[in-house]
C-alpha cells in the first residue's frame, strides 16, 4: 500500500534565516541552544510520517509540540525550512501558485479548531464555499451544500447564520464544508477541542460513521489521548517538534518507547481502549468458557465474566479462530508497563 501523504525529513525553524539553521539542527543542536545562540525557534525536527489512504492518522502532542505547525505543512499554509511533502507521490514543495491552489481546492480540505466560518454568510453559503470558489453553478452548489449539511445532521438550519448556532453545530457546518469540497484528504486541526465533552463524543462518533462510508484519508490533530486512541488507525506522538513514537495505537499503549509516552498513557482507562486482539495469546487449551470477538474491549470482557479471572475464552475474528484469551493476562494488561528498554 503506497502512502497517500508522506513527509520526508521535514524541518521547520521559525526565524529570519531559517534555512541556514537547518544544518545546526541536523547536527543535533537542541531547541534551547538554538534559541540562545541563534535566536531561532525550532518548530519541527526531522519528521517522517506516512499517511495511508482511507486511514485516520492522528497526530498527538501537548501544546507547543508542533502538531498544528505540522498539519499546516500538508497544504503549505506554512512552508517548511527543509524536507519533502509528497501527496500522491507529487512534491507539494515544487508546486506553483496555481497548482497549489488546485491542491487546496480539490485534494485537501480542512476543519479548524475555532470553526473559522464566515460570519456574514448563512450556514448553506458556508457549506458550499469550496464549490462556489471553484466556480460551480448555483444549482450544484446548493444541492451539494444541502446534501452534506443533512448528512451531518443540520437539515433545516441552512438559512441560519453561524452565530445563531451552538459550538457543536458550528463545527458540523465546518465538517460539512470540508465534505462539500469532495477531497480525498481531510485535515482536522484540533477539530473537537473547543467543544464540551459530551458533544465531543458525539462528533467523534459522527466522524467514525462518516469515515466508514467515505474512506477518506484523515489527518487529525489532538492533544487528548482518549480521542486519539478512539479515532486513530495510525498514531503519531510528537514532543518538542519531533516524533517520539508512531504506530498502531494499541501497540503504543502496550509498549511505550519513552517515559514521556508512558506518562501519557498511564492516566487513561486502559480497559476501555485495549481490545481483546491486543492481549490474546495463541491457542493452547482445549476447552473454553465461551467465544468472544477480537474487537471487543477489555471492559466488556470484565463485565461478561463478572470479575472472575479463571475463565479462558476462544477469540474469533470474522468467524475464524485467531487465539485465546486468559482473563489473568487481561488483568495484567491493565497495569501500565514501563517503557521498553528502560529499567525502573
Amino acid at each position: 500500500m503506497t502512502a497517500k501523504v508522506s513527509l520526508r525529513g521535514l524541518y521547520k525553524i521559525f526565524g529570519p534565516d531559517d534555512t541556514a539553521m537547518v544544518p545546526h539542527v541536523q547536527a543535533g543542536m537542541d531547541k534551547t541552544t538554538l534559541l540562545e545562540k541563534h535566536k531561532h525557534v525550532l518548530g519541527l525536527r526531522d519528521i517522517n510520517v506516512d499517511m495511508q489512504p482511507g486511514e485516520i492518522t492522528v497526530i498527538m502532542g501537548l501544546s507547543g509540540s508542533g502538531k498544528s505547525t505540522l498539519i499546516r505543512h500538508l497544504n503549505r499554509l506554512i512552508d517548511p525550512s527543509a524536507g519533502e511533502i509528497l501527496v500522491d507521490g507529487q512534491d507539494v514543495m515544487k508546486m506553483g501558485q496555481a497548482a497549489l491552489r488546485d491542491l487546496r481546492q480539490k485534494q485537501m480540505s480542512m476543519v479548524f479548531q475555532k470553526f473559522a466560518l464566515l460570519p456574514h454568510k448563512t450556514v448553506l453559503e458556508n457549506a458550499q464555499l469550496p464549490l462556489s470558489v471553484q466556480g460551480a453553478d448555483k444549482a450544484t452548489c446548493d444541492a451539494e451544500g444541502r446534501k452534506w449539511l443533512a448528512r451531518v445532521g443540520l437539515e433545516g438550519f441552512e438559512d441560519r447564520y453561524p452565530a445563531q448556532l451552538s459550538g457543536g453545530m458550528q463545527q458540523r457546518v465546518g465538517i460539512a464544508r470540508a465534505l462539500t469540497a469532495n477531497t480525498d484528504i481531510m485535515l482536522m486541526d484540533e477539530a473537537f477541542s473547543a467543544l464540551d465533552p459530551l458533544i465531543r463524543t458525539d462528533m467523534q462518533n459522527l466522524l467514525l460513521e462518516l469515515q466508514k462510508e467515505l474512506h477518506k484519508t484523515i489527518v487529525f490533530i489532538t492533544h487528548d489521548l482518549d480521542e486519539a486512541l478512539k479515532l486513530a488507525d495510525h498514531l503519531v506522538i510528537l514532543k518538542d517538534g519531533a516524533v517520539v513514537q508512531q504506530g498502531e495505537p494499541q501497540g503504543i499503549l502496550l509498549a511505550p518507547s519513552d517515559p514521556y509516552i508512558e506518562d501519557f498513557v498511564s492516566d487513561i482507562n486502559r480497559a476501555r481502549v485495549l481490545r481483546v486482539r491486543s492481549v490474546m495469546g495463541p491457542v493452547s487449551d482445549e476447552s473454553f468458557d465461551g467465544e468472544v470477538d477480537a474487537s471487543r474491549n477489555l471492559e466488556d470482557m470484565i463485565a461478561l465474566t463478572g470479575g472472575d479471572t479463571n475463565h479462558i475464552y476462544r477469540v474469533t475474528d470474522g468467524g475464524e479462530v485467531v487465539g485465546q484469551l486468559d482473563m489473568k493476562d487481561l488483568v495484567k494488561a491493565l497495569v501500565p508497563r514501563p517503557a521498553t528498554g528502560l529499567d525502573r
Partner: protein
Amino acid sequence: MAAYDGVFDGLGLRDWCDVGKEDAPMSMAQLLAQSGGGGAVAEEGGLPFPSLDVLHEACGRIGQTRDLTAGIERGFLSIRSELKFVLDPITQPLSWMLDGTLWVFQSAPWWVMIPALLLITWLVSRSKSVTAFVALVLLFFGFIDHYEVAMQTLAIVFVCTGLSVLLGVPIGIGMSKSDTAQRTIVPILDLLQTLPTFVYLIPLIFLFSVTESKLYGIAIILYAIVPVIRLTDLGIRLVDKDVIEAANAFGLTAWQKLSRVELPLALPNIMAGVNQTIMMSLAMVVIASLVSAPGLGVLVLRGIRNLELGVGIVAGLGIVLLAVILDRVSKAALARVDTGRKER
C-alpha cells in the same frame, strides 16, 4: 560688533564671511538698530541664541531666516507651471462634478429635491424615525429661507465624500496588504490631518484660479479622505486570522479573498470611516468658503467679516443640523450592516 564675531574670527572664517558683505541685505534688527539707536540690545541681552539672523550679523555668508521662507516660495513658484500642467487636467473632472452636482441640487425644484433626498435616506437607513427627522430638518431649512445654501453645502459634501470613498478604500486596501505601504502612507495621513487646513489652501491658490470649484474640492478631499483610508486599513487588518486561514486553506484567490471575506468583514469599520469622512468634509466646507465654495459657509464667513451676529449663528446652527442628519443617516446604515450579520 555682533555677538558671534569672535567665533568666526577664531575659526579663521573671517575672509570667507566678508566676501560680498557690502551687498548683503539688511536684517530687520539692523534696520531698527540704525534708525532707533537700539544697538545696545545685543550687548545688554548678553549671549543671544545663535539663530540664523544673529549669525548673519556676524557673518554675511550665512543666510537669514527670511531666505528660508523666500526659498520655499521661489522653489514652489519655479515648479508651479509644471505642476499646473500635470495637475490641471487630472483634477478638471472634479470641477465638472462639483459644478454639475451644484447645478442639479440648485435647479431641481424643492418639491422634487426633498422627496428624492428622503427616498435616499429611507433606502440607506430603513428607519422611519431617521427619515422623519431628515424631512423635518429639510423643511425647516426651507422655512427659514436657507434651503438653497443648505443644498449647495449638501452637494459639495456628497461629491467630496463620494470621491474620498472611491479613492480612499483602494488606498486603504493597498495599505492593509503591504507593511511598507502602511509605513509610508501613515505619516502622510498624519500630516494631512494635523496640518492647519488653511496651510494647504495656500499652495492650491497658487496652482489653480480661485474661481475654479476644484480648488476647494481638493482641499476638502485631502482633509476628509484620511479616516476612510485609516479605517479601511484597520478593518481589513482586524479580520479574524482564523477565517483568513480557512480562506487560504480552501484555495481562494486573492480577489475572492478580498471580495468574499475581507471587505464584507471589514465593512462595519469602513462604514465608520465613511461617517467620519462625511463629518470632516462638512467641517471643511466653512473653510473652503474662503476660496469661493458656496453654501452655508459663505454666510458664516459673512457673519465674521461684517460682524452680523444673527446671520453667522443661524448659518452655523444650520451646519450643525446638516451634520446631525448626515451622521444619523450614515450611523443608521452602519447599524443595519452590523446587525445584518450577527442575529436577526
